[in-house]
Every structure is written in structure tokens, then in C-alpha cells.
């Protein structure tokens, strides 16, 4: 043990030095362009300590979402310095990373505030609004208890999720936003094709709303479906801390969807915490910049365990939204039949049976689920994690909640309607107008890649040898130690225009209102750290035409599309809404590390 400790100490010293001198071939200039909303954060008044406060504290057991103990660092009982980042069970931290902390200072909300004076979070309310109505929406500090631990976090109107806004299609509402948190903020109405002035993107459509400030949004809802609102300033901090809420836009057509017995809006997120506290956030810019922050406590509507009661035979409509910073979900309902009905901005051309629902960050899916028999149905997230240490896949199942189905039969039996897969001719007819553009050459081409500089040597060395296989989708953070130590100062995620060579905010795309743009995106598998990217386009709608040359056979209008590693995906953008619209990766830390560009749709 003494020898091991000595080795660890030497490795730590070596790598601490290497931290400064390591220079990757792909190193970006240190004066990288900071994306909108990411420049130095005036008004931040959080913890300004250089290193994480508990960086040298012994790691304690942390409970995973499934209730299993999450180990500390294996082999770290020697008294050597350890990191505060929970590691997956059986996964040792890399000795060369021991004792390192991310570059920069850290932030947690509510610094200097007596937690006992922060109000407890309240249950989500439903704000049923009609055309012309006004809603006051206030971002503020709230106190939440998760798995017995109390945290100061954020909430809209003191609620997590924020109020569920339910409006009729084509309604316009006014939202008076008040920022009472300790960061600048804004509200983005994700997926809604609204007036550009109210899109909520600092330095593009408005100034960030300072702490104590307000902004009035007018939000028009042209499309039925499920949407969500969230800040567009430091999403990597504000979103996981609770600033998110759903919007359900109801079609005037009563038969728009099949009838169901009940509806549930589920916002799927996660939280990264150790035994004592939240893992602090990078103050000047995101940490966890390589993979994004992947939480170790999975949450449904802000709670670690969701529960629902139903009757035998009930059909439940779930409006699913992935609000996690980085995690992609694969959700199923304990064997109950799942019918996928709609996604981001429309219904599918044809409903389909699915074994599970895959949601990348910011994506939404509407699914109908029938609970045919009495009993308990377990809502789970089931993925195949990669253990890089062993070179093996390992199934990982997290329980998100339970649906308890009583013996009493449904008051209304919608079994017949559920058994029928509907075709939505309206969607097909809408898509038909764009079919003439399907086969045209791409108007724009983007390559997704990453550049790094001055990462810890051990991280560079590991990435250098772990290149024989890259997963098209990384479901979990298999190397949280390396991930934690990567910050936006060292990692620059890149959208590169293949034609001009311009990158990120230097990309200056213009299109005429009413034009149809074919965008080809290639996710380069040979980059330093290839990873899937959920690409989101503000204010427009798009079709996924093909993936790796295989045409889509069942269209749905999207605002967010996952681009797996190594894949080439063709998107067709209906550029019908004038304004300056952001195109970005919806992994919060990737966007915060530069991965965004602007598409200008010029008025006719």
C-alpha cells in the first residue's frame, strides 16, 4: 500500500506538471471565441474558491438512481488525495488524475444565503392560458430535498418543473419574466416558432436579464404538441438546478390524438451530487466539457421516484421531455405496450409500436402506453454502458418510477383505439410540399468535431489509446474523472462549415424566408473525443431526411435531432420564420464550449 501511495503521489506530481505543458496537436488558441451568454459572468456572486471545496475530502458513498451504492474511488483508501466526483461502481479513477481539479473557480447557487430561509420547492401547477392571457414567471432560489439531502437550487415560481403552460394552438400569451436568481438569465421557448425578438438568446435576440431584472415575452404557438422552456444563459448551471417547464399546445381538433384515460407530462433530468453536496459548477464556463455533466441521480419532474396510479386497461399519454444536460435516455414502462404518436413539433405520419423511447437532450416524444393488467409497472432507463477499464459493455438499468395499476377496470375502455395505429394524412400532405427538395444537393454542410488544449496528460494519453472503437451514442459517463477536469477553457466543440471553413459563431448563414435548406451534418469519428450531438435549430422546423444514406420512411417535424458518432444526417429546414436563429448542440456544456452558429432567415 505504501508503494502504491508513493506511485500515486509521483503520478500526481508528474501530471500536475503535465497539466500545464501538455499540448495536443489539435490545440485551439487560448483566446477562443466565447459563445453568447458565456462571457464572464457579471453579477455572479457564488463561491470563488480556486478549487472545489471538497476536492481533498475522502469520497463517501453516493447512491445511484437505482438505489445501488455508488462507490468512491476503488483503491483510494490509502489516504491519497481523491476527487469529489462519484465514479461508477468498479471503475477506479486514473492515478494520473488524482489531486487535480478543474481550471478556474467554482459556483453553487445561493452563496451567502441561509438555506433555512430559502422556501421549499412547491408542486408544479398547471397554467391553463387562453389567447391574450398573461403569466408572471419568476426564476428564484428554492430548497429541495433529494434522497434525504437538502440543496439550494432554482425553480420557476418556486416550482420544479416550472408551471405547466397549457394553451390552445395559435394562442399568443404574454410572459413577464423576473430574474431573482444569482445569475443572469433568460427564457427560451424551445421548439416554438415564435417572433424572433422573444427567442430568449442573449446577444442574439436580447440582452441577458440581470439578477433582479425583468423581460416581457410574447409567445405565439403555431403548432400543436409538447414544448419546453428553459434559460439560455449558462444552461449547464441553471437547467440542472431546476429551471425548466413544459408547454402543451392543444389542437382544436378533438380527434388530433386518440382518446386516453389520463395524461402525464414527464421531464427527465439528472443531478450530479456526492454524499454531501452538489458537485459545484465551473464559474467562468462549463466544466465537464468533454461529455457534458451526466448526473448520478436520475429525476422525473425533479424527483428521484415518480409514481402514478392507474386502472386496469388504462391508456396513459406521456409527454416526455429530456431536460438533462447531456444524458440520452432509453425509457420503457415495465413491459407495457408503447405507441409513439408524436415528437418535437408534430405527429408522426404513422403511429408505431416501439420497445422503448429514445430521447436525446431537448427532444420530446408523445407516447401512449396501455396498462393491460393489474400490478406494478416499473418505469426504467435501460442502457448499455461501456466500461472502458474492462473494455466491455455493461447493462445499466435505473428505476425512474412505478405505475401501480389497480384491479378496477378503466371507466372508459380505449383498448380498441389504442390497438389501432393511425396514419396522419395531414402530416403527410404537409410533408409532401417539401418532397421536391428531398433529392437536391446539400445547401450547407457541417462537420462536428472538437479541439482541445492543455488537458491533463493522463486524459490525453487515455484518449490516444482508446481509439479503436467509438460508440455511436455514449449513454453514461464512463470516465467522470477525465470529464470533470475538462473545462470550456480547454475544450472547444466545433461546428465547421465544410465550404467556408468557418466555425461556430463565425458561421454567417443567410437564407430567404420561405426557402428550403438541405443541411448535411457529419459527426467526425476521428476527433479527439467523438460524441453524439443533439443538434437544435431555434424558431424553425426541420425533417430528418436520411441517416447514413438510409431515407426516413416515417416523417415527423423536429427541432432537435441526434447526430450519432460517425453518422451523416441530412436535414431539410423549412426556413419560414424570419430572424436570427441559433443552431447548436443541446448538450449544455458543448454549447457552452462553443458549439453554436446562427442562421439568419431574411424577410421576404
Amino acid at each position, binding site marked *: 500500500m505504501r508503494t502504491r501511495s508513493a506511485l500515486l503521489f509521483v*503520478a500526481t506530481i508528474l501530471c500536475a506538471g503535465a497539466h500545464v505543458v501538455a499540448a495536443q496537436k*489539435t490545440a485551439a488558441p487560448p483566446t477562443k471565441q466565447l459563445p453568447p451568454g458565456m462571457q464572464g459572468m457579471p453579477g455572479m456572486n457564488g463561491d470563488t474558491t480556486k478549487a472545489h471545496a471538497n476536492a481533498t475530502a475522502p469520497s463517501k458513498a453516493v447512491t445511484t438512481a437505482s438505489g445501488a451504492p455508488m462507490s468512491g474511488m476503488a483503491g483510494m483508501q490509502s489516504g491519497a488525495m481523491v476527487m469529489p466526483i462519484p465514479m461508477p461502481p468498479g471503475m477506479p479513477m486514473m492515478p494520473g488524475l488524482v489531486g487535480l481539479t478543474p481550471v478556474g473557480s467554482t459556483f453553487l447557487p445561493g452563496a451567502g444565503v441561509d438555506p433555512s430561509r430559502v422556501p421549499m420547492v412547491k408542486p408544479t401547477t398547471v397554467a391553463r392560458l387562453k389567447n391574450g392571457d398573461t403569466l408572471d414567471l419568476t426564476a428564484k432560489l428554492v430548497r429541495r430535498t433529494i434522497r434525504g439531502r437538502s440543496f439550494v437550487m432554482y425553480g420557476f415560481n418556486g416550482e420544479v418543473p416550472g408551471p405547466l403552460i397549457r394553451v390552445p394552438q395559435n394562442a399568443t400569451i404574454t410572459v413577464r419574466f423576473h430574474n431573482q436568481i444569482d445569475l443572469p438569465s433568460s427564457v427560451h421557448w424551445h421548439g416554438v416558432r415564435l417572433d424572433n425578438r422573444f427567442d430568449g438568446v442573449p446577444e442574439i435576440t436580447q440582452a441577458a436579464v440581470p439578477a433582479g431584472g425583468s423581460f416581457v415575452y410574447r409567445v405565439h404557438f403555431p403548432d400543436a404538441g409538447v414544448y419546453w422552456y428553459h434559460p439560455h444563459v449558462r444552461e449547464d448551471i441553471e437547467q440542472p438546478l431546476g429551471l425548466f417547464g413544459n408547454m402543451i399546445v392543444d389542437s382544436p381538433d378533438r380527434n388530433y390524438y386518440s382518446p386516453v384515460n389520463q395524461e402525464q407530462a414527464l421531464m427527465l433530468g439528472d443531478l450530479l451530487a456526492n454524499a454531501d453536496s452538489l458537485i459545484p459548477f465551473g464559474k467562468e464556463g462549463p466544466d465537464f466539457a468533454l461529455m457534458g455533466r451526466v448526473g448520478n441521480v436520475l429525476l422525473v419532474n425533479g424527483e428521484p421516484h415518480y409514481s402514478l396510479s392507474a386502472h386496469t386497461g388504462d391508456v396513459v399519454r406521456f409527454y416526455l421531455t429530456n431536460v438533462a444536460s447531456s444524458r440520452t435516455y432509453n425509457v420503457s414502462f415495465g413491459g407495457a405496450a408503447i405507441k409513439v404518436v408524436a415528437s418535437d413539433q408534430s405527429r408522426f405520419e404513422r403511429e408505431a409500436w416501439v420497445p422503448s423511447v429514445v430521447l436525446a437532450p431537448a427532444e420530446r416524444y408523445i407516447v401512449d402506453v396501455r396498462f393491460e393488467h393489474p400490478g406494478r409497472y416499473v418505469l426504467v432507463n435501460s442502457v*448499455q454502458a461501456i466500461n472502458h477499464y474492462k*473494455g466491455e459493455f455493461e*447493462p445499466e438499468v435505473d428505476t425512474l418510477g412505478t405505475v401501480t395499476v389497480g384491479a378496477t377496470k378503466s371507466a372508459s375502455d380505449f383498448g380498441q383505439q389504442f390497438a389501432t395505429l393511425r396514419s396522419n394524412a395531414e402530416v403527410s400532405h404537409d410533408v409532401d410540399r417539401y418532397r421536391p427538395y428531398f433529392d437536391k444537393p446539400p445547401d450547407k454542410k457541417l462537420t462536428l468535431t472538437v479541439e482541445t488544449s492543455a488537458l491533463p496528460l493522463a486524459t490525453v494519453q487515455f484518449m490516444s*489509446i*482508446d481509439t479503436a472503437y467509438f460508440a*455511436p451514442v455514449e449513454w453514461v459517463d464512463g470516465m467522470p474523472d477525465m470529464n470533470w477536469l475538462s473545462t470550456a477553457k480547454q475544450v472547444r466543440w466545433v461546428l465547421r462549415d465544410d465550404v467556408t471553413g468557418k466555425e461556430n459563431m463565425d458561421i454567417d448563414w443567410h437564407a430567404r424566408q420561405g426557402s428550403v435548406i438541405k443541411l448535411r451534418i457529419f459527426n467526425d469519428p476521428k476527433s479527439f473525443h467523438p460524441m453524439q450531438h443533439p443538434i437544435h435549430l431555434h424558431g424553425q422546423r426541420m425533417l430528418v431526411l436520411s441517416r447514413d444514406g438510409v431515407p426516413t420512411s416515417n416523417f415527423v417535424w423536429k427541432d432537435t435531432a441526434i447526430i450519432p458518432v460517425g453518422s451523416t444526417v441530412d436535414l431539410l429546414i423549412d426556413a419560414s420564420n424570419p430572424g436570427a436563429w441559433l443552431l447548436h448542440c443541446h448538450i449544455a456544456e458543448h454549447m457552452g464550449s462553443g458549439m453554436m452558429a446562427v442562421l439568419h432567415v431574411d424577410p421576404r
Partner: protein
Amino acid sequence: MIAGAAAAPGRMRLSVALLAVSLVGPTGPFDIPLFATPPVPAAHGVARLVYASSPFGIAVTADGRARYDIQVTAAGLPAPSTLGAFTTYVAWEVTPDLDKWIRLGPITNGTTTVGSAEANKFLFVVTAEPGASQSVHTGPTVLHGTSPSGWLQSFLTHPLFRGVY
């Protein structure tokens, strides 16, 4: 690309594999280079993994395993009858321990889509068979390859994890 990557053993192995693929056609990140066995020395090919049809951006099973259709491009396969009492070539998804063989479908020289493979790691094997509907493999293996996920390496003994630099 990063400094030192060219010397990485994994990358060298991958480069050799991709060179083999290039003999048949375009390379992709999820291509399986197929290698011939002694009875068919002129045969070669590539099996490309593409996500199976799905309403989502990717196709997975309920437990999260990727579901791929496989586009097989083969060349140099002689008539099956030259190898014995065989009429067709059949593709199989085989577990790495060779314990489980799952029939994917018949293939010929040229490009054929068979599917769908769902194992995390698998071998892709083509055998000569007496009939196209053969559900159990009986004939000789003519082409074989490993899914890209099979290139995942264990770093259990790597110096990085032993604190040696």
C-alpha cells in the same frame, strides 16, 4: 488526430482493417472488414452496420443494445457448389464465444442487406449452406469479421491505470 495516435496499437490494427475494407468499396466508421478462409482465398468483403428503421434517431432494443441492419458487400465468392453440396451463402450473427448463431439471411456477390444484429459485440460469419432457408449452420465458413465494438480494449493492465508513466 492527436500526437502519438499513430503509434497506438489499437489504431494500427484499425488501419489494417480499414485497408482491407478499401479493397471492396467505401469505408465507413461502422464497417466490418470480412476476411476469407482458405477454401475461398479470393473472397473478400465488408459488412456495414446501419441503424435499423426506428421512429427515433437511433434504433435500440428495450435494454439499450443497438439494432443494426447489415449491408454486406462481397466479391470473389465462387459458386457454392464448388465447395461441396451447397447452394447458397448464409450470413450469421455469432456471439464472440461462438455459442449462439443467429441467421441473418442469404447473401451473394454484390451488395445485400440482411438484418438485424442486436448483440453488443458479435462476429459476422458467412457459411456455405445446402439451402437458403437453413436455420442451423452446417457448411464451411467462407468469410468472417468482428463488429467494431469487438475492438473495445481492456485497459486493466495498462500503465495508465497502474500509475506508471
